Each structure stands twice: as structure tokens, then as C-alpha cells.
């Protein structure tokens, strides 16, 4: 057995109306995913400021995932469209900075898609684990 | 050459998304060469969608299309059936020995008034 097995740190932003409820549904159905995923609740995926994501990477997160309602289903009509466009821009910048594309993701998970939430998280954790630790943006002063 | 390959060829050459068809039949309703055709415009679209290309390749229908583009302009879904027919026809005649119009046929076709345009167009459509 491997000692000190690498565990990634994943921050997940979930919109209150669809994805957070989807995560709750995954819980209700006992659909397991790694404990490395830590969820932060936001009213809408469009509340996620790119600053939050940069901050997470700076503080040592290995992957950040944003989950929102499916396009067209946003509780606030159009919020997830903003998310999609903002994150497309941010991710390409992160890519430019050397943060691998696989470390960031936007996923649409509805309140009924508990299984999709768990599957998404499993897949994301697996991909990020394969990449290993994020060193690119990490601020060493934040290291313990 | 399997059907899948041919199907992809037709789609590539024509650039048509056959799955946009909603089976309204307006292409065949508007086709001026309908009565001459064994397979009609909507069947071309449908058969390409299903990968049934061989019957089309061997059909005389290929040479009955007038390329008048009525089906293209009137299709409510933007499917462009005439481009599908053209792609199938090209697939048939590009093969050596498959030219549909031969130089020997010409004397029977022309008269004193025949415009050059007729022969030029026919050759472009029927031969490679």
C-alpha cells in the first residue's frame, strides 16, 4: 500500500438552485465521490468571480469546478450564460499561464441529476489526481 | 467500401446535414423532374441518412436532377437536397469508366440551334 497517497484539493462552486440541490440529491442517494471535493454555495454560477478561482489556485487548490443550471434553465434566466462566457475567457488565460485545462471545468448539473453530480466529481477528481499537484499559481507564502 | 464510408463521403462532399430533414416532402413536392426519378429528392436525403447509398449510386435518378435548386430554396429546414444528389452523382461518375455522357452521344443530341451552354453544362454534370 502506498503511503502518503496524493489527495488533490478540489473547490466546487455550486449554484443554489440546480447544482447544490443536485449535490444534495447525490447525498440522498448515497452516491459516493471523493472527500477531496469541497462545495461552496453561491446563489447563481454567475456569482463566481474569477478572483475566487485565482484565489483558490493561489491558496493551493488543485482543481476548481463550477456547476450551474443547464443553459436555458437558469433560475435567474441568463446567469449561466454569463458564467459560460466568463469562464471560457478565464480558462484560456489560465491555460496561457500554464494551469492545465483539466484543472478547471464548468458543468451543468440540474437538481435532478444527483448521479451526474457524483459522476462528474469522480471524473474530475480522477483527472486532477492524474495531473498531480498544482504548483503553477500557488503562492508559496500560503504554504504551511 | 462500406455504406458508412460512402455515407461520410456524401456528407463531406455535399456539406449537408441530412439529419435536419423533418420529412415534410416539400423538396419532392417542388421538384420539376419528379416523374422521371426512381428515387425522389426526399428519398435521397432519407437514404443517405440511413446509409443506403448503393441503390442511389446505381440509379438513373442521378442524371434526372436539373440542378434548379428549387428544393434548396424551398426546404424549410435548410437541408439542400440538390447538393446531396450532386454529391452522389459525383461519387458515381468520378470512378473511371462511369461517365454518363460520351462524346459519341453528341451528334444525336445537337441540332443547329443547340447552344454551347447545353453541351458544356451536360458534360460538367455527367462526366468527369
Amino acid at each position: 500500500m502506498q503511503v502518503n497517497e496524493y489527495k488533490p484539493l478540489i473547490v466546487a462552486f455550486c449554484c443554489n438552485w440546480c447544482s447544490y440541490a443536485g449535490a444534495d440529491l447525490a447525498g440522498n442517494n448515497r452516491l459516493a465521490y471523493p472527500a477531496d471535493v469541497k462545495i461552496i454555495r453561491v446563489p447563481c454560477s454567475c456569482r463566481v468571480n474569477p478572483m475566487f478561482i485565482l484565489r483558490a489556485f493561489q491558496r493551493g487548490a488543485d482543481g476548481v469546478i463550477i456547476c450551474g443550471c443547464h443553459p436555458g434553465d437558469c433560475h435567474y434566466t441568463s446567469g449561466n450564460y454569463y458564467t459560460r462566457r466568463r469562464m471560457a475567457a478565464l480558462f484560456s488565460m489560465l491555460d496561457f499561464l500554464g494551469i492545465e485545462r483539466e484543472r478547471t471545468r464548468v458543468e451543468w448539473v440540474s437538481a435532478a441529476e444527483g448521479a451526474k453530480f457524483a459522476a462528474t466529481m469522480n471524473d474530475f477528481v480522477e483527472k486532477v489526481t492524474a495531473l498531480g499537484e498544482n504548483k503553477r499559481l500557488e503562492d508559496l507564502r500560503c504554504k504551511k | 467500401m462500406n455504406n458508412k464510408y460512402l455515407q461520410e463521403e456524401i456528407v463531406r462532399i455535399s456539406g449537408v446535414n441530412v439529419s435536419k430533414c423533418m420529412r415534410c416532402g416539400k423538396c419532392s413536392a417542388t421538384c420539376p423532374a419528379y416523374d422521371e426519378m426512381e428515387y425522389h429528392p426526399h428519398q435521397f436525403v432519407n437514404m443517405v441518412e440511413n446509409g443506403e447509398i448503393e441503390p442511389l449510386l446505381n440509379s438513373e435518378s442521378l442524371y434526372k436532377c436539373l440542378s434548379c435548386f428549387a428544393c434548396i430554396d424551398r426546404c424549410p429546414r435548410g437541408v439542400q437536397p440538390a447538393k446531396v444528389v450532386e454529391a452522389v452523382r459525383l461519387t458515381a461518375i468520378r470512378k473511371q469508366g462511369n461517365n454518363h455522357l460520351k462524346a459519341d452521344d453528341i451528334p444525336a443530341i445537337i441540332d443547329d440551334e443547340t447552344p454551347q451552354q447545353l453541351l458544356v453544362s451536360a458534360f460538367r454534370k455527367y462526366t468527369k
Partner: protein
Amino acid sequence: MQRVGVFVCWCGSNIAGTVDVKAVAEALKSEPGVVFSTDYQYMCSQAGQDMIKNAVKEHNLTGIVVCSCSPRMHEATFRKTAAAAGLNPYMVEIANIREQCSWVHKDMLSGTEKAIILGKAAVAKVNLNAPLTPGESPVTKRALVIGGGIAGIQTALDIADAGFPVDIVEKKPTIGGKMAQLDKTFPTLDCAACILTPKMVDVAQNDKIRIFSYSEVTDVQGFVGNFDVTIKKNARYVKEDICTGCGACVDKCPMKRIPNEFNLGMDNRPAIYIPFAQAVPKVATIDPNACNMLKNGKCGLCAKVCTAGAIDYTQKDEYIEEKYGAIVVATGFNPISMDKFDEFAYSQSKDVITSLEFERLTNAAGPSAGKLLRPSDGEHPHTIVFVQCVGSRCESCAEKGKEYCSKICCMYTAKHAMLTRDKYPDTEVYVFYIDVRTPGKNFDEFYRRAVEEYGVKYVKGMVGKITPEGKKLKVQASDLLANKQLHIDADLVVLAAAIEPDKSARPLATMLTASMDTNDFFTEAHPKLRPVESPTAGVFLSGACQGPKDIPETVSQAGAAASKVIGLLAKDKLTGNPCVAGSNELICNGCSSCANVCPYGAISYEDKEFRMPDRTTKVRRIAVVNPAVCQGCGACTVTCPSGAMDLKGFANLQIMAEVDAICK
């Protein structure tokens, strides 16, 4: 820094089975601000809630963190507990250690570790929480209904029935809308006028309802409960309160060759007219573009014959300002223009008509007094071809037509075909269809009856070309099932034109800041659960302005919209969601980015005077959020380039603190 109490719930074994709750409580004790930390079997039980209340008093807590189930489950419960203990209810944060921890992780070690981190994040957030109070605003107890078709009529009647005053604004000289033009209605075949006109009379006689006919809304300000609306009453050159609707002027008017809109131009009307006999209000209107008196001061016959003295050539447009608590949009639909579909020869032959024209042609009050006669020569048609889906279900990027299914055409075409065969059994009737869509009560039975009992010939396929030649219309079409091309010599062709929202809808949506889809249909707040509300609070949707609808559907939606309006007007005050955006006026530079992304139109700008450090004053443009309209999505906070905009309850610093706590 708050004085935070942490309460870790076992949820029986639901949490305690995978998470070491004692360890969590212990670990969180050392977090900044935490002055008390404990665990209990069922925090949501009365005993658990009492434990929280006591701890608040005992330890002077200013913030509470409950590590328990999802906030979607018990956030409201614990907020009430906090309020009961004298705390602001928004000083509570929940760490979700059940649905998002104990239930999805099997390993006690990692479960506990994660629960601690989630707890830390909640503590970090609550430390930055501020007490929030939902705003209150008064409600003007009057509703505005824009559009006087069957949707607007039904909504107005239902609202008035609950005792609230309602105003209807209708741009035509009479209410009644499209339904007033119809002959019979499916699937029961009762006559449209017989069921509509009594409702129109009810509206006229209801003392809670005012009708502004020949009028339009020109400006809307304000927000839910408090709309300020400007209504323009177009000059009709007839005093509404004096005119008796006797019609003497209509008979005498010498300008008799104006295309009659009500009959879709199939016959003529005079320059002064009453659209139809049962019009409400039954008042004459002068068409200023046709009246000789108004154009060049010559004539004046109508004034001479009017014994009531109602004609007033000097009348001007009038603007009325009124306050409303709720606005219902009922602007309805129109058939699309057939200009771009001339393969069907609509512009080339009078005998190619639209379905709405067919309604007028078969209506007893129509241009042919209900006899089905060819518009070109007045002869009885023997072969009639109906073409469905003309302009419906077209590709989105197509240059002509609409992408959606117009929904009503299958049924009205079946109705037309059936009625034709019923009245004129010597007529051959063909219906060309792509699909027959009849999902409605008794709808499919109706369509089958048209085929089986009335002998209507339904052909699967589309018409490709119609060639008028001599007296005939040569119809070239597909019969897909027989794999044949059909050639039919028809006498009359009826096109089931797609329907589209009324052209007035788009400018109105801008005024209301109500959202629309790409087809100019109003969007609903939620497609399934809030179908009659616009995402803009206080704006409601009735009828075909929201999407194609038949009469039964329109009436039920109209009633639903009315009940939502009544629910709003019944309140004296509106309580808002306190988690709304707010702009820091010292940082805001008035760039308008936030207003551009706000789906609710909650952000406006004002010029404010600021005192500068050098004691001068400077006027700056700043953003102001209306808390009664803001729904708290946070789109503006991210788009704000200066960082002035923030969201209460989900502030930048709070979320950042959560990120920090998780990534420690």
C-alpha cells in the same frame, strides 16, 4: 469579529456514522471567533433548538454555525431559532456535513477531515456576516392589463372579481382581439362570438374595469407594487362618453373604400367606422389617414348627422398617468406575412388566402355573409386545398418563417376542413400536413372525425408550388406515403400561416424590462413552475404573448395570471429578499456594466454630490440597486470593473473567506 457558537449535529447515525462529530466540535473550537462549540444528537429537535437559544444567551453569541444537513433542509428552521433567541436570522450559517459529506463518503477519517474543513468555511463566513433586514414596499392595489383579447379580458374579469380595480389598454378601437374575428371554435364548434361577446359586455359593465381602447402604453417606471405607467389615448375624433354607437355617421361617410382591417382587407369600410356590431366600447372612430375633413378640411358630414354631437375634429392625443401594483401583458399574436412564401402564390391570386381570412370568409358577419365564395369571382369553390405549417417549423437560420410549431394550426385546419365538408358536401377538401399535432382534450377525436365522418382527405406531405392559371390554382404537392407527386386543380387554397407575437411586444418588453426569447415571445420566470410570471417581479403573462396557444389554454393561463396578480394585490406590503446587491457609491464610477447584465432591470443610475477631500463638491454618476426588484443572482458583482458592486449574504469577502478556509 463575531462571537460564534458552533453546533454539530449527529443526525442520529446519519452524520455520526461517518463523521466523528465530537472531533469536529473540538477542532472548530480553536477557530477565530468561536467561543462555544458543542454537538448533539438532533439539532433540529426542540431540545436541540433550545440548546442553541440557551447558548446564545449564555455566551452572548452574535453568530451561529450549525454543522448539519443541507441548508435547503433546515436553514429556515435555524434562522427562526436565532430570531427567537434575539439574533438577526441572517447571522446563521450551515455547514452541510450530511448530504455533502457523511452520506457520500464511507471513510470516517476523510469524512471527519472534510466536515472540519466545511465547518471552518462556515465559521469564516459567519465572521463576516452582517445582520440583514428584508426591505418592505407598499402595494398599489390596481392592475393594468395590456391587450384586450380573450387573454386580457379573462384576466381583467378575474382580477375585478376579486375586488381589485383593473384597467385594460387596447390599441384597437375595440376589445375582443383575434377571437372576435373567428367563426367557430374547436373542438366543440360553438360560435366564437356567442361565447366571447357576453364576456366583452361583462367587461364593459364591470365597475371595477376601465377600458382604454385605441390606446397604448408609452412609458413604464417603478417596480413591483409601484409601477408608474403612461397611457396614450389616441385621438379618435369622437367623444367616447357621448357617442351612442348608432352608426348614422358610418352610413353617411362618403369615404367608403378603405380596406377593412377587421375583415383583413377583404371588404371596405368608411373613414369613420365601428369595427363590428358587438364592439366594446361601441363607439365610432375616425381614421385620420382616410378622413377628408381631417386631411383637408372638406366634408364634415359625420358631424352633421350626429344627433348626439359626439364628433370632435379637434381632438388631440391624450396622455394619462396612473399607478399600478401589477402589470399583465396580453399582447397576443398575428399571423406572419405571406410575402416571402410566394411559391404559394399568395400575392398572385386572391383565391390563395390565409386561415384567418378563411375565418372571416365563413363568418356570418364576414364579407360574404358566411357563404364560402371565392374572393376572386364570388363563385362556389369545389376543390379546396389546405396547406399546414406555412412558415412554422422552419430552420432557425432560415430566411423565412419561424422555428417553432405554431400549435393552433392543426386544429383550426381540421375545423375548417370539417365545417366545409359539413356545409358543402360537394366540395373536395385536401389537407397537406407534415405531422398532425392534436394533444388536447378531445382534439384527436375531432381530427379523426374530420377524416372518418366528414371525408376530409389528409395527405402527408407539403405543397411545393401553386400556379394560378386561368380560374384554377394548380397545386403541386408531395404524397409521401404513396411516394407520388400530386397535381390538383384547386379553386381555393388556404394557408395555415405561422403566428408570431404582436409587433408591439418588443418595445413593451423594453419598457417593462421583461425578458423575451429570440422570437419575441415573453419568457416566463420558470418554464414549468412559474409559467405565468415574467422574471421581472410584478409583470405577469397572459395568452399568446408567451407562446402560441389556443383559446382553452389562453383562458386557463389568463386565470392563472389573474390569481397571481390577486395574490400580489392582496398584500399590503411586500417583503423582499434581503440578499440583494448593493453598490458602494464611493467606488462606483457609473459605467453601466452592471445594468447591462441585470436580468431584472433592478439597477438605475443617479447623479450624486460628493464632498471631496479638498472640500469641493463633485457630482458623480453612481449605480443604485432597487432592493425590491433585485433577485440576488450576483451577475452584476462579477461584471463590476471597480468592485463597487457586492451581494449581501454572499459578499466577495465572505466567499473569499470560504475559499481561504477550504484551501488552508
